[in-house]
């Protein structure tokens, strides 16, 4: 038995010795993070993080308790378990009725490991920094590019999970991502352009081979040029118009207006005071008209390469592919054992995840994908007499029920009679979730579809940042409120 397994057993034994109904223990060791960023020829951040920790979650018949520690010693493991029990017992005083959970079998000695060709933590730092330095340099196409950044991030988590119900698994999950962005400034005007997307680029459950394949150096010059061109571009036209969204922006639209809205803890009010609730109500699951007939969304935790792909969630429930929207109708939600039981489901959807050993699992998105349609990009544009094509997120905001949204993108192009025309700056579009998705009348095919990684999905108190993915094609929406900011 390894030292890690011994600590897990010690914590589990200490929790069980207190007579609680259930306990599970997650130990993550090592937990590694690498962040390399080059800005304007200098090192903005070259950081490596190595940590470990252990989290104990317990349940009395009425309440949960959770405690986490970064100290991996036998005494800390036992003390952490005892704190979790104290918290659960104290919380039980406010609980009028017993907790109900779905009955899950759980894995026995399960194993899940990311397939990695070139381990990002073994790749020489020289090679990684040289790649970034070369790309960053090419962003500076003009003195008006005041800032250029090229960055690379990698995460590595080795997890051991055991529960008092006999479930156990080990996993090693590796995520990587990289990107470039240029900021052009003239007077009071600021324009930013990024590639492959904003928020540091694109991300994948993979090795360094993914970063090499992004072609950052080849993309960088175009990114710098477009940032400068945006300084001279006309403002995006204002008014209701036909909107074609590029894949990365549509991925964020899915994230904000579908993914969060179908989290069952939000639907039941568990996140009401912080992240908010949802316009979806439990009784409408299965009948709610979410969007047009062309709208098909799945939550797929088995998708190769997704940041939301794993073997089992942090309750020991297996990864699943769950239909969320079928031909425009809401048919499924994201759930945990507790939330699924409340809804009357037989099993959890397996989406309870924590962002580290010291945090408790919450319902999180996995890989929430808008499935492709059958039109090429040109065919999506074809029927547009007058409209705009927008891509790469710049700003995002949505209300606490996930209805009223407003997104800004880095770049837009006018569309005239089915053709992309000139660049427009500061585009913003807004709408209401059901009207927007019901206005979708064309969906791009697999050639327009891309799986995007989102590394910074915030939820919970204390705040947790989940890494999730969204597959999205291009798609067309009619009579959307668009304006130039």
């Amino acid at each position, binding site marked *: 038995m390894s030292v890690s397994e011994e600590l897990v057993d010690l914590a589990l034994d200490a929790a069980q010795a207190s007579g609680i109904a259930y306990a599970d223990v997650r130990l993550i060791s090592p937990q590694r993070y690498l*962040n390399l960023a080059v800005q304007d*020829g*200098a*090192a903005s*951040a*070259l*950081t*490596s*993080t*190595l*940590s*470990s*920790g252990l989290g104990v979650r317990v349940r009395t018949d009425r*309440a949960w308790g*959770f*405690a*986490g*520690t*970064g*100290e991996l010693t036998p005494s800390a493991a036992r003390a*952490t378990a005892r704190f*979790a029990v*104290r*918290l659960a017992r*104290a*919380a039980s005083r*406010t609980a*009028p009725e017993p907790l109900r959970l779905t009955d899950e079998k759980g894995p026995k000695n399960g194993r899940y490991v990311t397939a990695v060709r070139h381990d990002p933590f073994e790749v020489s*730092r020289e090679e990684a*920094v040289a790649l970034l330095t070369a790309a960053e340099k090419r962003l500076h196409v003009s003195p008006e590019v*005041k*800032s250029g950044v090229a960055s690379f991030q990698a995460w590595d988590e080795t997890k051991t999970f055991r529960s008092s119900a006999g479930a156990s698994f080990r996993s090693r999950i590796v995520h990587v991502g990289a990107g470039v962005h240029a*900021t052009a*400034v003239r007077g*009071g*005007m*600021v324009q930013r352009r990024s590639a492959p997307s904003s928020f540091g680029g694109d991300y994948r459950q993979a090795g360094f081979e993914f970063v090499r394949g992004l072609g950052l150096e080849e993309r960088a010059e175009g990114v710098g040029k477009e940032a400068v061109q945006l300084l001279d571009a006309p403002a995006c036209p204002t008014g209701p118009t036909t909107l074609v969204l590029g894949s990365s922006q549509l991925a964020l639209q899915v994230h904000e207006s579908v993914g969060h809205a179908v989290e069952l803890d939000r639907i039941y*009010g*568990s*996140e*009401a*005071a912080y992240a*908010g609730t949802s316009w979806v109500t439990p009784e409408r699951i299965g009948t709610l008209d979410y969007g047009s007939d062309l709208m098909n969304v799945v939550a797929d935790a088995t998708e190769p390469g997704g940041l939301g792909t794993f073997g089992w969630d942090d309750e020991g429930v297996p990864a699943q592919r769950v239909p969320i929207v079928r031909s425009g109708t809401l048919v499924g939600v994201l759930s945990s054992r507790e939330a699924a039981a409340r809804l009357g489901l037989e099993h959890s959807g397996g989406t309870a995840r924590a962002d580290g050993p*010291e945090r408790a699992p919450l319902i999180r998105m996995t890989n929430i994908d808008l499935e492709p349609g059958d039109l090429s990009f040109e065919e999506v544009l074809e029927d547009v007499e007058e409209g705009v094509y927008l891509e790469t997120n710049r*700003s*995002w*905001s*949505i*209300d*606490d029920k996930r*209805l*009223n949204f*407003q997104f800004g993108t880095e770049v837009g192009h006018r569309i005239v009679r089915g053709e992309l025309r000139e660049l427009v700056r500061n585009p*913003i579009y*807004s709408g*209401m979730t059901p009207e927007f998705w019901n206005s979708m009348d064309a969906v791009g095919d697999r050639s327009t579809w891309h799986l995007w990684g989102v590394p910074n999905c915030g939820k919970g*108190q*204390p*705040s947790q940042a989940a890494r999730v993915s969204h597959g999205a094609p291009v798609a067309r929406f009619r009579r959307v409120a668009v304006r130039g*900011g």
Partner: protein
Amino acid sequence: MATRQTSRSDPVGAAVRGLPEGTTADARVIRSSWTTIRFANGRITQPHMERSFRVSFRVAEAGRLGTATTGDVTPDGIAAVVRAARSLARVAPVEAKFLGFPGDSPPRPRTVAFSSSTAGLGPEAVTRIAERILSAASERSPGGRVAGVVNVGSDLLRVVNSRGLDRSTRNSAAHASVLVDRPERDPPVSGWSEGAHWDAAHLDAETLGREAGERVATRPPESVPPGNYRVVLRGPAVKDVLEFLSLVGFGGHAEQEGWSCLRKKRGRRIAPEQVHLVDDPRSSSSLPVSIDYEGVAGRPLRLIDHGIAGPAVMDVVTAGRLGRPLTGHALPPESPFGEWGPVPTHLLLAPGDASEEELIRSTRRGLLVTRFHYVRIVDPGRGIITGMTRDGTYRIERGEVVGPVRNLRFTDSVLSVVRGVEQLGRSRRIYSDERGSSAVTCPSLLTKSFRFTSATLF
């Protein structure tokens, strides 16, 4: 022998002092202990306790910087983190204008307020605070659904560097927020309250619960059209405006990269005389700390000096690049907020002399906004942000609150909001993040124009 003893009892200090010639370093030792009690649907749902410890080690070799962090504080662990930081520094591009780490020179850090009893509160005691909030809110709003959070804990930060600086600070904090909503109503209504203090004994759980309960409207909210309104912003809404102003106006990276909305306005009037905004990390009216993450002593910095825009804040990297003095606002170099940092984290807006009722009475036609949701930057160069109102937005007619309204989206410049300030409340409260690492102490205020660009259904 003496060296070995030192490295056993203080491996971090020994590692900083033991670097080869030509290599300098600073290190942060951060120890945290926090209890978080979340409640929802009238019961405690997520009780949570967390103890963490980390060392962040940054080395500079011929202007090349590398940072590594670890949770392993054994001598072997510290040796490994030093190796990791040095291996990154060796491949780093040169930070040509790097200032070097600050020495142990004045100003000296002052002792700041700290509550040992707060830092030592056990899980049962923190749970009882949550129970008191639940009880007060339920009593004031029978039938309402109560949700919220209580965070209580403390952090210890030590910064040591190879120029002889060795300073520590500790902070304690208690923070709570509470929502009461009536989701069964169509449209639903809700009320909100929050507050923080460095001493949990001053966190008034009953008042917070009662305020949230009594702010739940008894009538259904009506729709009002988007447009420009005079607005009374309650403290939580003012907090958001000031935090975003500090990011896009006073942040060091915004200044250095040229996208600060105040870049050409420093030393010029951006607000009326009564708007006086100070960042003061050591103030006992905030959640005080005595040093920043580079060990620089905190001191008051006038960001808006009676209406006049002050300087952006600096850490060793931005100060070097711009040739400016350090201001004591460094974040940890490994911070995920590195893109924004350095930023002001202890904002205090000077109070005025009006009660909230007087602010409302001064408004012939306008809105009262309790708080915002999901605020994001739209155009940093112009200071434009967007977000939604939430949990208590009301219409004001002829100086009186006449009823709740459905929530609105605003899209406006933070500069326009502060430029339009007409009156400030006399009562201030501390609002903080969940770990007390940043705080805004502010009153309610009345601003003459706030641009709302769309409305939602509730």
